[in-house]
């Protein structure tokens, strides 16, 4: 537990602090400590601009205006902190690694969650675990609390409803909040769509990071095989597993496309990460996605 946090921290340390691009002023965006390099509410001077008709007279900076003929308005830098809700799928299907040399999907999901939490915290954002009922908080202590909750230390999160299905809990999040969901999203697409729709209705934006084992991607099994479901979906015995491969991959691609479409429809992003890839890569992609969240980038991204 210590080591995964240390690893997450060292992962996070390789990137500068992450500042969420908050597009909209929302109630969730608390008056914060860091400037957003743009005009807004805040205390730090940002720029003077010429007075325009819609400006209130009280906004005129008389000291500046006195030095010339025109009127100037003093603008301050927008200082705000975004709240980010984090969630890692803890369902049984995540407890899987096709090869001893590969990490389990759960481990990778938690590592990425903690690493992004560390990044966010360093950037001054507030983070909270979804489904726990805590308010977003900031500071280094939060990371420790997060890892405690995640890794089953003191005060571990109780299993939230929907956890077994591999779906994020249908928690009411404040409007305009951000969410990062780490999981395999192998649940039926309708359930995912419905949950995403609920988030979209709350104007919650965010990213889904689908964590997959390479075996799930390629179905590398041959011969007579009995597949055992990991979330009591039942099992399936097939004579020749290799015969299923092409259609399985087809179906998986379709599932992922559907996920991507659902994400786009909700204004989310879908990132795919494989456990045989280094976590740095995924974190970097995530970083890019969060730091430069632009409408055209939404959709499926691989990392």
């Amino acid at each position, binding site marked *: 537990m210590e080591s995964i946090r240390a690893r997450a921290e060292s992962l996070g340390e390789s990137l500068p602090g992450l500042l969420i691009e908050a597009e909209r002023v929302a109630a969730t965006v608390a008056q914060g400590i860091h400037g957003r390099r743009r005009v807004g509410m805040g205390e730090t001077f940002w720029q003077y601009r010429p007075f325009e008709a819609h400006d209130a007279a009280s906004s005129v900076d008389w000291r500046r205006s006195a030095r010339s003929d025109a009127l100037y308005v003093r603008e301050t830098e927008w200082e705000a902190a975004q709240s980010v809700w984090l969630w890692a799928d803890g369902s049984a299907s995540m407890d899987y690694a096709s090869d001893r040399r590969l990490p389990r999907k759960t481990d990778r999901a938690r590592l990425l969650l903690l690493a992004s939490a560390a990044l966010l915290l360093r950037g001054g954002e507030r983070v909270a675990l979804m489904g726990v009922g805590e308010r977003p908080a900031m500071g280094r202590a939060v990371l420790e609390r997060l890892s405690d909750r995640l890794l089953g230390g003191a005060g571990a999160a109780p299993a939230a409803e929907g956890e077994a299905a591999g779906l994020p809990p249908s928690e009411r999040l404040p409007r305009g909040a951000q969410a990062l969901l780490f999981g*395999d999203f192998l649940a039926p697409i309708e359930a995912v769509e419905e949950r995403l729709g609920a988030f979209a209705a709350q104007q919650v934006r965010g990213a889904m990071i689908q964590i997959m084992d390479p075996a799930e991607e390629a179905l590398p099994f041959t011969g007579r095989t009995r*597949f055992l479901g990991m979330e009591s*979906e039942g099992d399936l015995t097939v004579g*020749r597993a290799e015969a299923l491969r092409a259609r399985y991959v087809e179906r*998986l691609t379709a599932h992922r496309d559907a996920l991507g479409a659902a994400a786009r429809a909700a204004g989310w992003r879908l990132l795919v990460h494989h456990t*045989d890839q*280094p976590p*740095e*890569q995924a974190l970097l992609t995530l970083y890019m996605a969060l730091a430069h969240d632009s409408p055209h980038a939404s959709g499926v991204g691989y990392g």
Partner: protein
Amino acid sequence: MLSLGPLAFLQPWLLAGLLALPVLWWLLRLLPPAPKRVDFPAIRLLFGLESPEKTPASAPWWLILLRLAAAALLILAVAGPVLNPERGLEGDGPLLLVIDDGFAAAPRWEARQQRLTALIEQAGRADRPVRILTTARRLDGTPPEVSDALPAARAEAAVRSLAPKPWPGDRLLALAALDRAAAEGAGLDGPASVIWAADGIDDAGAADLAERLDALGPLTLLQPAAEAAPVLAVPPRAGAAELAVTLRRAEASAARTVVLTARGPDGRPLARQAARFEAGAREIAPVLDIPRALRNDLALITVEAPARLPARLPARLPNREAAQGVGDETPSESAASAPETLTIGLGAGATALFDERWARRPVGIVSDAGRDVGLALLSEVYYLDRALAPVGELSRAPVEILIRAGQAAIFLPDSTPLDSNDRDRLVDWMNGGGVLVRFAGPRLAQAEDDDLTPVPLRRGGRQLSGALQWTEPARIGAVADDGPFAGLAPRPDAVVKRQVLAEPSLDLDEKTWMRLEDDTPLVTAEPRGDGWLVLIHTTANTDWSTLAISGLFVEMLQRLTELGAGVPTALPGAPDRPIGPVQTLDGFGRLGEPPVTARPIAADELADAVVGPEHPPGFYGTETARQAVNLAPQIADFETLDVAAGATTAGYAPADERPLDKWFYLAALLLVLIDGLVTLAMRGQMPGLRGGRPRARSANRAAGGAAAALLLGAALTSPAGPAAAQSDGGDQVIGAPMGSGAGGALAGDDFALRAANATTLAYVVTGDAAVDRVSRAGLSGLSAVLRRRTAVEAAEPIGVDVNEDELAFFPLLYWPVTDAQPSLHQGAVDRLNRYLANGGTILFDTRDAHLASGRLSAASEALQRLARGLDAPELTPVPPDHVLTKSFYLMQDFPGRWTGDVLWIEKPGAEVNDGVARILVGGADWSGAWAVDEAGRPLFPVTPGGDRQREMAYRFGVNLVMYALTGNYKADQVHIPAILERLGQ
């Protein structure tokens, strides 16, 4: 028991299990192979994807056949298969064992005992009593008796305690014992199984005994194998010149080779020689060729049969000796030792004992010191003395003393006068077997009627050469073929100037043993009683001839000496005094303490003593004066035992019964194993068959990691364009394409040659392909810089595996630390310590200076783990005046790809390795900064960046190599002004 030819089954009813095989076939066809079980999270996607084609539900036919074969083998194994099963005892009633235990039974006695024991065990299993009858007299001299009916265990003990006797068996006695037993009504009338363990030698009672035994019940005759047939060894006549041991055998149908071993009194072998009976030959007399000096030590000759004859022993026989049936001793060590280790002792009959009579050959020269005149070195006695010295014990004394001491031969030179008493004594002595060799001379030539000559002599003799003569001295001519000199070659250098002449007579020719060229006799001889009188018609010194100074003289005297009989050491006492046994032979032909039942023999009956329980063969007398009593000469008839029909004849070799069940079990197990492997392979779970995938994956991961590192660098150096970097960074190949000589793949001499032919930088292969590529590219870049800027002609770098490769060639080892690198094993730690102690330098690069420092990173932990056990000195940050800061360039910090990290170095002041630090530790990822591609372009950006940082990184590399190569040279240079100043004063 079920028998099928040589194969039998102990539990044949279990074979019924074979009937179940078709059922098994049906079951195996019916049941599909078990599927492998795989956990699969994405199983929802698989539902409804069942393959349309029906899978092969059953195993292939050959696999079923394999399993059936395994099952059949198992059933056969359980049924207890036995090859060559032992046949049971015939008949019922008691088992009568008639055992020959005379001397002829000694060969392979243990095998006989084992065979008999096995038979007794069989009888014991059938609950049949055993009676035992031996055929030789017992040790205490009593005749053999039929034992009581013994239970198997006691009979076995009785047989185990039996030993062959060193005297012949007597089947008449056995017959008598049978008669006595029958008379006592000892239950020998009923049907009994009779087994006669014979020694293969016929005797007077054999036929009768066989008939009598056959009447008792079914008779089985056990006959020894040809290689264990007895052989008799008869020693040669005492005093014979050649050591020709007469060997006799009974069975003569096939050729046979035996090995003669001559042994000393302590049992030490003196000589060994093979002898060969040709087919049909019953008797041979091989001559044992023993050096004369060893012959006096000879105590016994044993004959042994090689158990397995070395193939080349007979093949090396020279023709002449092969005709005699004598093999040469093989010179090669291995062949000589082969008979030693692989022989069967043939027992007491094949052991010939030798006492002093065969060895001692005292020779006397009649000399009367008081009456001898003339110069000592020209005297005949002196010449004789020198010529006879190698022949035997030599004594010079007057006749009386010589005869009393006992001599084989007495040499009488002409210079010694004889009185009539001496003549009489000599004549008596000759009649008793002595050999008197007389030399002619002036005294004999002038003598009147000297009757102590083999032929009458003409007075005066003849002079062949002299001042007044023109004749030439005569040479040696012909040698009599039947005399002792047969085969002696005449020497041209021996000439006779003067001789005595024999009167012509009818028998002169046959008395002459050697002649001159003109046919006048030179040596004449006449038998006198048991002895010989020999006259040499010239002097024993050079007065009359040069014979005495030719080699011929020595050979002649030697042969004359051998005419005489050996002389036993005289024992004091009356002629019929009892002579006690000193050492006797046991039945196996081993010398040992005499048994308590052995009795002394009267001295005058010694030659005629009959060997038996009272007088076992052996040495009699005292330790110093021993007389041999031999067994073999007393055996008159030595014929093969040939028993009338009616008896079953068998050998002593046990039936070669071999239980085969374990082989069947083994074969079944093997088949099951093969089946298991095949099944595993068919289910795709063979670990070896899926090696490709993980490797490819790790390569992917490595490439991905490298790409991430590159992206990271790009992101840090140019924050404006990360998206572009992301788009083309995915498949970029890091590092120069590897040439043929990728580091670590070299082995042995190639490795050593490449490493030693030029100054070579080396990096440690971590196993992480990306890191190794960077290390290699980095050292390549540094080597290029070294070549361009300095006198160091660095060759292409080599990757070394610290666990395997020799490190002594490399002045500097660059060690990138990854947490994936496995820990070192003890051998590698030792090698590294040796490397460090002998002047090596290692630069550990944790490559993590860009991460937050001051906290233990994964690489630091890996470094701690790797360096555990290394003889690491105390480290300190590089001090500002350290040699490393000025060994080529002047510099104070040591950037690599990253800056700001501290370079730790061994604390200066240590007086090892010329003051050169053994270990440097830093985290600046120098190889990343040095790394260039083929075109010489840097591979990675440096952080925070700039050409200056890269240049400084190269400078650090140059300084480091210079430091490792030149040591504290620069440190000395610093002091030169001070030294010059001091010198100037």
